[in-house]
């Protein structure tokens, strides 16, 4: 696996496209220096059928990182990715992902809130069709006080596709006044579609706000009928309601 380390100097502002600076690296380490502001877009396209990736992002004091994962794969690809985010004091990390392609896609995200007042926000969306399988596992580990994390996972599942989610929020004793939330929503569009969710919490501190929610369902009949009654055709109604379902995924 080819690897690359990118270090962004303190107090600088950068926009990075991995297709330009790390085209063939599957192991990327990104270090965002103190008070630096970075937008990192992973817009690489792959034709291989089996791929492994590892990303390690460390954001130092007061740093900010927006990481957009827009990788494209073939519909036969088996993809395993692991991402570690480490947020140091007062830093902010945002992660957005929209899955494009892949027959079996596994994504493991490990969010570590190491420094006081650090924040990590992660949002992943997918429209799974045919026999695609998506397996997402997230961990939000709060190690310091006043930290905030949020994770939203949404999937529209049709054909015989499968969406599996395993989420964990851990708040250690020292991480008082922290806030942690996790949401998983799956919309099942066919008889063969399958969704599985296991959102877990482990809380050792008492003065925290912590919660998770999971919802699995189909397009709401009432909403659909409301739009039909206003003269929209079936395709338009479906696309409007599915867009609405995904709406809060992006910041």
């Amino acid at each position, binding site marked *: 696996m080819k690897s690359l380390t990118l270090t962004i100097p303190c107090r600088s502002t950068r926009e990075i496209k991995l297709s330009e600076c790390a085209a063939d690296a599957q192991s990327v380490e990104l270090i965002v220096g103190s008070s630096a502001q970075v937008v990192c877009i992973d817009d690489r396209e792959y034709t291989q059928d089996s791929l492994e990736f590892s990303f390690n992002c460390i954001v130092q004091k007061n740093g900010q990182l927006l990481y957009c994962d827009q990788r494209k794969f073939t519909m036969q690809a088996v993809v395993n990715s692991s991402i570690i985010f480490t947020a140091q004091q007062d830093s902010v990390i945002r992660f957005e992902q929209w899955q494009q392609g892949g027959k079996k896609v596994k994504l493991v995200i490990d969010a570590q809130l190491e420094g006081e007042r650090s924040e990590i926000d992660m949002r992943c969306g997918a429209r799974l069709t045919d026999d695609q399988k998506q397996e997402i596992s997230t961990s939000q580990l709060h190690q310091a006080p006043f930290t905030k994390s949020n994770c939203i996972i949404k999937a529209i599942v049709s054909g015989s596709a499968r969406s599996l989610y395993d989420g964990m929020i851990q708040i250690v004793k020292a991480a*008082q006044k922290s806030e942690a939330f996790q949401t998983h929503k799956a919309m099942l*569009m066919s008889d063969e579609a399958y969704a599985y*969710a296991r*959102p877990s919490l482990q809380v*050792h501190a*008492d003065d925290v706000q912590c919660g998770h929610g999971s919802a*699995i369902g*189909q397009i709401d009949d009432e909403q659909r009928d409301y739009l039909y009654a206003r003269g929209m055709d079936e395709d338009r109604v479906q696309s409007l309601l599915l867009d609405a379902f995904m709406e809060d995924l992006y910041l």
Partner: protein
Amino acid sequence: MSDISKASKYTAVYTAPKGLNVQIVRDISEQKNEPAWMASFRLKALALFEAKKMPTWGADLSELDHEDVHYYVKPVETQSKTWETVPEEIKKTFEAIGIPQAERSMLAGVGAQFESEVIYKQLKKKWADQGVIFCDMSTALKEHPELFKKYFGTVIPSHDNKFAALNSAVWSGGSFVYVPKGVKIDMPLQAYFRINSQSMGQFERTLIIAEPGSYVHYVEGCSAPVYKKNSLHSAVVELIALPGSHIRYTTIQNWSGNVYNLVTKRAVAYEDAKVEWIDGNFGSKVTMKYPCIVLKGKRAQGQVISIAVASKGQHQDAGAKIIHLAPYTTSNIVSKSLSKDGGHTSYRGLLKIAKGAHHSKSKIQCDALMFDDISQTDTYPTIDVKEQRVDIGHEASVSKVSEEQLQYLQSRGITEQAARALIVNGFIDVFVKELPMEYAVEINRLIAHEMEGSIG
């Protein structure tokens, strides 16, 4: 009146030696004068128990020593039909709990189990005349063998898990309830389970069969005196709700802090039937209990409302399992937990929607309240959906007593302690309001006692 945290002094008629082997299982069966098929059932279950490994998930069971337990203690020779004939020392305990008084005023029937045997069982004539059967399991095996054999072990087979196998091998006591077609018992039936001896294992087995269109509310309470050595309570409860019937099963468990409470509870609900588990977990050292409802018939309904309170040295690993197998089935789970003084509460749940269970609906809500930073609370729900036309929602939250709510109440002249108590009562209200009035009052007192120092 005696204190329920202290043991009664009495001499048991028979106490099995500590440990578990084929001979002890044979002895239990002989003591009970059981038919050969039951002895064989027990021995097969013992082999399963020995073959199965201890669970590696959930609470810590490493201090549980299976060899340091008396698996059978027979307190009296014969069961009593009136409180007057119950031995004085044993009666004192049940009087302290208030069982005889409650029987007179508000119950359709009462059973009292002391150690391994049911020492008192009584059903009001009105219900007996309508064909209701309420007796202990050994009596049911003798007097209603066909009914017993038809349903016994059908919901929870011996091989279900290690502790179900253990219970199947050494079971003794518990209640057998049969409600005939269309009979609605409008007062609760109550059973009370008391462990009295040190290093004692209580393995009661309860089987409730509700024929079509019937209704029964069964209430069980449990307690044990405080000892240094651990006791084990491993029950199996099977509920069969036939079409259109309704079973409500309420548990108020208040074991002392040295009891391992490892219970398997499962219900099957057929077409249009409804099953409710109302589950209050207060005492024990370790509780691992996940009441389950299998919604097998169309439009069947299941509800689990539970509360768990864990203080110092306690781990309440409780939850609920709902399996939707038929269309138009609905379920609701509400779990509330409170942890204080280093207590540990966990919600562990499973919601499964099988293929074909279309138009099923389920809502799960688990809320945890923490009182200090040495306590711990976890939530492990699993949601597994194989059907498209369903509506599933799960929500969980963890918080402490809110400063804002406290200030609001204090600004209206309520003291901080009273305000905390009010907030806690509000938090558990969803559970308390499901209880009969007498129990609701008792639970509020129990919570105040458990939370002493935390809510004043």
